[in-house]
């Protein structure tokens, strides 16, 4: 069974991003980039499935700029077998990425596609569901547990107020939530090994996919900053403030 995992190169979660003074973009020059945290969980889950003998091959794919190769190499160092970069410097929105992935799904015929539930840059939370729609696959989003047996995936998913378990016929799409697993650290020997693993590069045109953005961003702005608060001298004052000034007690 082949497993396809999609990963995105995003701004590292510890970096504080700023809007450019003209409000037309975000200052991303010389900013530390990393694999989207939810995608790390997706790679980890796929690698564990292969280590357990359930999956035979883990293919990791990314769509984006040439530097996304670094992200793919990280995934290879975590244990993925080979990588595909769909290289473009055009802006890619979730629907376009889903269409690109769908074209790859047609080509590679994976039984399971695992994606992070959401990228921490655009916070869209769409690509997995969209891919499932376009490929005609069932979906289990926000997964906290995945068991694959006999052509079926039993997936526990995080829903508001609890957990829900679904049984999906493969091929299927799963998106990961935080509790699914704890991704491994990449070791130096594995980083060296990853350099020798195959990484193919293709273009969106090769897949015959229209990647035109549907949403135009008119403006980026920083949210209204909270006005600086006050340091209160003691608990008594705090309770008094919460009662009379904030009126929350």
């Amino acid at each position, binding site marked *: 069974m082949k497993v396809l995992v999609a990963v995105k190169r995003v701004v590292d979660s510890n970096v504080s991003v700023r809007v450019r003074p003209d409000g037309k973009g975000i200052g991303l020059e010389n900013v530390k980039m990393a694999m989207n945290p939810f995608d790390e969980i997706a790679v980890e889950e796929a690698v564990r499935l292969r280590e357990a003998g359930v999956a035979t091959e883990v293919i990791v794919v990314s769509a984006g700029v040439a530097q996304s190769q670094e992200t793919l190499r990280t995934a290879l160092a975590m244990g993925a077998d080979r990588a595909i970069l769909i290289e473009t410097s055009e802006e890619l929105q979730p629907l376009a990425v889903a269409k690109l992935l769908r074209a790859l799904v047609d080509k590679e015929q994976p039984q399971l596609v695992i994606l992070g539930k959401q990228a921490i840059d655009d916070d869209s939370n769409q690509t997995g*569901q969209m891919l499932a729609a376009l490929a005609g696959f069932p979906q289990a989003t926000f997964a906290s547990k995945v068991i694959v047996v006999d052509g079926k995936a039993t997936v526990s998913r995080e829903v508001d107020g609890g957990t829900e378990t679904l049984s999906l016929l493969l091929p299927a799409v799963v998106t990961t939530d935080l509790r699914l697993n704890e991704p491994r650290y990449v070791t130096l020997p594995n980083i060296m090994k990853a350099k020798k693993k195959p990484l193919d590069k293709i273009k969106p045109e090769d897949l015959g996919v229209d990647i035109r953005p549907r949403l135009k961003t008119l403006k980026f702005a920083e949210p209204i900053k909270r006005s600086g608060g006050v340091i209160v001298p003691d608990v008594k004052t705090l309770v008094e403030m919460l009662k009379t000034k904030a009126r*929350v007690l």
Partner: protein
Amino acid sequence: MTKLVSLVIAEHNNASIKAATLNTIAAAQAIRGEIHVLVAGHNAQDAADAAAKIAGVSKVLLADGLQLKAGLAENVVATILQIAYDYSHIFSPATAYGKNVTPRLAAMLDVAQISEITAVNDTDTFERPIYAGNIIATVQSDDAIKVITVRTTAFDPVAAEGGGAPIEKIDAAADSGTSKFVTREVTKLDRPELTSAKVIVSGGRGLGSGENYKQMLEPLADKLNAALGASRAAVDSGFVSNDYQVGQTGKIVAPQLYVAVGISGAIQHLAGMKDSKIIVAINQDPDAPIFSVADFGLVGDLFNLVPEFTAQLSKHAV
């Protein structure tokens, strides 16, 4: 210009309408067109009746079938597709349910989804937070149908009573046969749920251990009828499990009152809670970044201050 008619996908439990639907209808009202509400479920007449009473709703559509009982995305989306082209806008709440179903619908319609909007600027222009709320993007859609999820904390709910909309039945699409509901475990909480709580008491590394976390924060949370949260540092240190985590990669919350105890205020934590109405920070380091977003800061030893705070609250129930 085409007629503006919005469809709101109701979140419900077949018997009643969930509150998030009321916030979503509020967002749809900003389009200034007619509003229809879809109730897709099983034996969901009561939920449809409740939807018909909501102020501002002009029609309720009820799709009833066993295959819609569990809210499976495949079946719900196939049902909506039968009517989707009648609408200029389709809204759902950005809850686990809405986030699961709506992008699947958008892709079937070959349109973008506009996720988690916090404002409607025009019929095609919306504001939405990106980078965990550190940046607000104003986006314009040129798609024929705008498919939108709504951050419910950004819109005041419409009144649940006062309307009298007619209910029209529509067909439930056939079962996809590829996805099956197995079971649902509702977390037994003697406290409110983190994402919908009005008050949250959250703890960080400063608490030192899981035992201290319980000892210090539980009595305080009891008094405030609060949900319990944690910083990533507290989760990574094993004080609590990671479903407590508030932050960029955890839960995004916006309660009326957020009490941060022993939390220094890393960027990724602030991103998850800075839209809270009132923030209280208790920390021994006066330079901790948490104080830059706190309305009220208390500098000192949390092991003295928290019990004192809890004790004084007995006189002032929330």
